[in-house]
């Protein structure tokens, strides 16, 4: 069983949801990343998303754009990111690691060379934001041959016909982008998310993660109530950005956020209905 599959199976057995933090590798400098990965696992993360820095991150809001810029100031390349995963794997052989980024670095390294190196490093999944399944055939075949899961996005604009197609190509988990917008946006609508997750669930048994716009324990708890996994990106990266002067402060700030989310998610669905909460009913 792949690490991702094993991770979700174990959580499901405990009736818990996956907490998936995202950090940009090499932000604010390459030495920070591996210790931060371990700190996140210790704070309750179940799966890690490691951003591969790119010069033109089209789907990112300002927070992750700046993280990419900080990482690229140190020249953090895809090769460097794979080396970080390798180092992480020396002491953690169980936590799944998914690389998240854009096509071009993978394109330039070459699909086969990337797949071989990523598998050797201990990468479990690859999410390329600008690679819809229509363009992914060749890469998916190469990844599956080395048992790396291609992770695909679903969006509020994705119609039923495409949901079917995407879920058929998906393994590991599918990532539902909770809103029309870029990472770090503020307009999360949990009711709409729930509706779409139910719609996606009709098409697949693969776990459904939800990301974009999850900023604190409260939103994490509400999203965990409707999805299998909660992906937290900009909120984590903001903690990194606010503490660039010290790796220790970064680890502490990120761990504190994840612990709050973990506790809230494990407490189960909010006792007061979230709608009531929004409108201040029942307080």
């Amino acid at each position, binding site marked *: 069983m792949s690490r991702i599959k094993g991770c979700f199976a174990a959580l499901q057995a405990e009736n818990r949801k996956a907490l998936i933090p995202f950090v940009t590798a090499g932000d604010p400098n390459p030495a920070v990343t591996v210790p931060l990965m371990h700190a996140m696992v210790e704070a309750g993360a179940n799966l890690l998303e490691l951003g591969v820095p*790119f*010069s*033109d*991150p*089209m*789907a*990112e*809001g*300002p927070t992750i*754009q700046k993280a990419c*810029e900080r990482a*690229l100031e140190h*020249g953090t*390349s*895809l*090769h460097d990111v794979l080396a970080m995963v390798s180092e992480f794997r020396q002491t953690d052989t169980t936590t799944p690691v998914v690389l998240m980024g*854009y*096509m*071009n*670095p*993978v*394109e*330039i*390294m070459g699909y086969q060379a990337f797949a071989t190196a990523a598998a050797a490093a201990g990468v479990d999944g690859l999410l390329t*934001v*600008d*690679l*819809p399944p*229509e*363009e992914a055939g060749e890469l998916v075949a190469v990844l599956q041959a080395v048992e790396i899961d291609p992770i*695909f*996005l*679903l*969006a*509020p*604009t*994705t*119609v039923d016909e*495409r949901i079917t197609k*995407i879920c058929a190509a998906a393994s590991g988990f599918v990532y539902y*982008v909770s809103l*029309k*917008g*870029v990472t770090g*946006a503020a307009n999360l609508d949990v009711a709409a998310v729930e509706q779409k997750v139910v719609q996606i669930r009709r098409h697949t048994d693969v776990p459904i993660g939800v990301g974009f716009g999850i900023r604190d324990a409260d939103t994490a708890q509400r999203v965990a109530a409707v999805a299998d996994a909660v992906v937290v990106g900009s909120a984590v990266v903001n903690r990194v950005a606010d503490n660039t002067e010290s790796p220790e402060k970064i680890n502490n700030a990120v761990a504190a956020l994840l612990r709050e989310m973990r506790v809230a998610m494990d407490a189960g669905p909010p006792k007061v209905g979230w709608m009531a909460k929004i409108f201040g009913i029942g307080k």
Partner: protein
Amino acid sequence: MSSEVADPAFTELPDPSGHFGVYGGRFVAETLMEPLDELTAAYERLKNDATFQAELDRDLADYVGRPSPLYFAERWSKLLGGAKIYLKREDLNHTGAHKVNNTIGQALLAKHLGKTRIIAETGAGQHGVASATVAARLGLECVVYMGAEDVKRQALNVYRMKLLGAEVVPVESGSKTLKDALNEAMRDWVTNVDNTFYIIGTVAGPHPYPMLVRDFQAIIGREAKQQIIEAEGRLPDALIACVGGGSNAIGLFHPFIDDSAVAMYGVEGGGDGVDTPRHAAPLCAGRPGVLHGNRTYLVEDDNGQIIETHSVSAGLDYPGVGPEHAWLKDIGRASYVAVTDDEALKAFHDLTKIEGIMPALESSHALAYATKLAPTMGRDKVIIVNLSGRGDKDIHTVAGLEGISV
């Protein structure tokens, strides 16, 4: 492969999923896939719709001022001592460049799709002005993204866009130039996709943009073909056009692709030279990759990061190029060359003094290559150069480079 004549089916490209060989395609975030499908379907329907075409033709005639003349640059041709050079006068269009051919077409699409808001990216500001112009005319809200560096370099066009009622948003991320403006426009689109139409200014981006922008610009080549046959009784021997994203070049080239005796030259911004790090010549000195929704040639480093480009011409200062050009290069149907900033500036002055026509710095690159090619050809040969825009917008840049304050 490079000596083969284009496949007869070539002009049928792109394929239904937007590919020109291995190039093109649709490399975007999932949120945009459905809107792109909708746009493709609407365009396929409207391009064969007589009412839509009549509306487009009327706008091109009465609003843009088409057909643009094909002018024989007799004095310049004689001085160069070789082929006869004709200039396709896109500089005489409303708003001063070929860009409006495309924005008129896309604005009509926006109207038919019921979109109320237009966004655009711009480098030199010509596409931004052309977008703001058509938005003003149709009463649509217009937001133009422009790299903060370009906002400084092109203050006049920024003010023009504001006069036309557009909001100009300076983009402070990355290298603060055209590529970053495109990133930011994509981010806006993904956020406001319900009411917003993204008018891409060149033959790049995700399918169907490279196809539909080409189709709207192909009027340049269709007119030129008819005009040169009227003037010379035959097809030209060579076509020359500058290539940034490549919309004016593909517009001129496309109707001639099956005429295998017509040579086609695309001229990239060579900056300080393609053997230096400061250029904007992906076809001459880059390699294939994926950026801004399509696979094409890019100026990039060994790790797949996009490198900041340089050209004296803001309109050529872009690290990518339209995927159809990438394909034309690989199959050998078109040749791509680069000229330096200095060569382009010399051509700018030459045409201004010899013919009384002040070309845009972008178009000056095509003219500079004509000065190299024409003398190698006999006096009975014919070249058409696409004079894609006029140079008024560049007066401050040229004066600045020469230490003159105006």
